[in-house]
């Protein structure tokens, strides 16, 4: 279990690509998905150590994905990203069960640090 597996979900392929490129170089194994449905399939198949998801996406938005993950994998850390930059969006993500919410544009160093902490957390 040397490289924690992180699932990145965003409907912007270039955003996913940029994040993956960096996180892979900083010690994570990366899975990607373009929408909520695809993300849940990945969760079932790969059981990632953490989930990073955008909020506005086709086929099951981010909030729905977070709520489902919270229900089926209660221990999986979830980081939400939102492009709306409003308190309402942040509150909604937290209510759905996100452990952390990052506003776009995201500081990627911060995200990497966050993921490191969240995945290092000992399982209860």
């Amino acid at each position: 279990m040397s490289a924690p597996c992180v699932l990145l979900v965003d409907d912007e392929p270039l955003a996913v690509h940029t994040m993956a490129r960096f996180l892979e170089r900083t010690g994570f194994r990366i899975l990607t998905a373009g929408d909520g449905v695809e993300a849940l399939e990945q969760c079932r198949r790969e059981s990632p150590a953490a989930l990073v998801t955008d909020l506005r996406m086709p086929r099951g938005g981010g909030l729905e994905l977070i709520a489902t993950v919270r229900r089926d994998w209660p221990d999986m850390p979830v980081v939400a990203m939102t492009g709306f930059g409003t308190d309402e969006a942040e509150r909604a993500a937290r209510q759905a069960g996100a452990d952390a919410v990052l506003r776009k544009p995201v500081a990627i160093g911060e995200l990497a640090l966050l993921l490191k902490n969240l995945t290092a957390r000992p399982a209860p």
Partner: protein
Amino acid sequence: MTALLSLADAEVERRQVAAALDHVPLVAGGLLLSTPPVVLLLRDAIPAGILHVWGGLQVAIALAMLGAYLATRPREGTRRPSDSPVLMLPLLNGLLGLNSGVGFAVMYTAHRPDLIVFMAAVLMVMAAVSAGIHAVHRPANLAFTLTALPPFILRLLLDGGTYQVLLAVSVVVALGFFLLTARLVERRTAGAFRLQIEHERLLADQNRRADALAAGEQRMRAVMNAVDDAILALDAQGRVVEQNEAARRLAGENLIGQPLALRLPAAAQPDFAPSPATERSFMGAAGMQPVEVAATPIQFAGEPGLMVVMRDLRERKAQQAALIQSSKLASLGEIATGLAHEINQPLNIIRMAADSTLLLLADGNADNEFIRSQLGLISGQTVRTAKIIEHMRVFGRKDDADAVTFAPMDCVQGALSLVAQQLRVSDIEVELEAALDCPQVRGWPVRLEQVLLNLLNNARDAVLARPLAPSGRLGTIRLAIRHDAARNEVLLEVGDTGGGIDPDRIGRVFDPFFTTKDAGKGTGLGLSISYAIIADMGGRLSVANGPDGAIFTIALPALAPARKTEP
């Protein structure tokens, strides 16, 4: 005419027979009562055998008459003419006459003048009764009179004495008198029957006409009540004289007798009628409300009047309001939020790419190839950001160029020429339906071409996004340009076979940043910008789902029809 007359004559005769039959109990009763005394009076002079046979026959004929009467007696007050046997009564009367006249002639006793006078008296009384009672039916009367008296007269004449001849002459005179009287009575009753028949016919005609009128009225009323619009008829003073159910519903009460102007103030204006459908205010059951009113002068049996048709506009207004609400452009706040979200996407990528490069550089973990690709990524995203901002500016910007008058067909051809090649290789068919007499419009042709291009691209994307049809051909884009003369608008339609837009979302397609396309495929700005461009030209851009896919319609105010502007 002859046929009609003979029909009426047949009916008269049936009634005569019926009336004659009605008197049968009287005749038969008289016969039954008078026969025994006659037999008693004659019993000394005539052999018992002959007398009893004669009396028995008289009684039998009387009973037969009663039987005929009972068999055809009136049921429920009226004797049906068809029940009246025309020949029955003359036949029985003939038998009675023969039995009486021949009987007396046979039983004639030359040595008893008193009995001869008695017999003559009996016959004449019977003939008198027949003339009185059966005169209404001549054959019945004649059948008795002509069979009863002649045999007896013959017997008197055969007897030959002066006394007998005188008696015969008096019987003949009486016979003539009876026949004459009966003839007069018969004529009068026939006349009465004719009048009666005519009267009944007139009554029946009148009833039939009244029934037809009532049925017609009911039909008209049913038709009027089936109409959703309120229909009113006003007299010359403007008072309501007719209304349908819709009018009653609209007003909430019966309007008959009320001056319409009390509820429809416009009705008091001198130019109220004739007027085409015009929106006006009406005091309805729920207060003042909008109605569409058309008034037409009409004539009621020579009197001038008005027909007023009112349509309740409340529902239509509510629908229009809902439509405007659902398809209106997003408010400024929504645009700002959408814009922020949209710009944050490339900004996010730019920042993450820049940050990750910086962090990896600091760790000595970034080679030139990595840095180059990250910078390329960043550059591309700044272009994307600029494009979003460029799109946005179209909203606020008023075109500097002056509006010009142009033929919209030129724009259609311009836009088509740009995409035709691409559509052909994509195996998408283009159908163009252009009206020849399409008027010109006013605005900015280049921008209209942009809108058409945008709609054509959307149509193409919709067709391409659809799974391949079994026919092999990917789909069809239909372009139509027509003139709606009623609204004096030029309509440009772009329809596709892409399956249409989800009805829940069709009201939002003109919202900025709304897109039905896959992520990254569209900015969601094309339609909102197109909408703004068309609105700038004084037109409307609308969308509906056709049988195969979405149909976008551009409606632009038409200038005078092209034909008329030509010298």
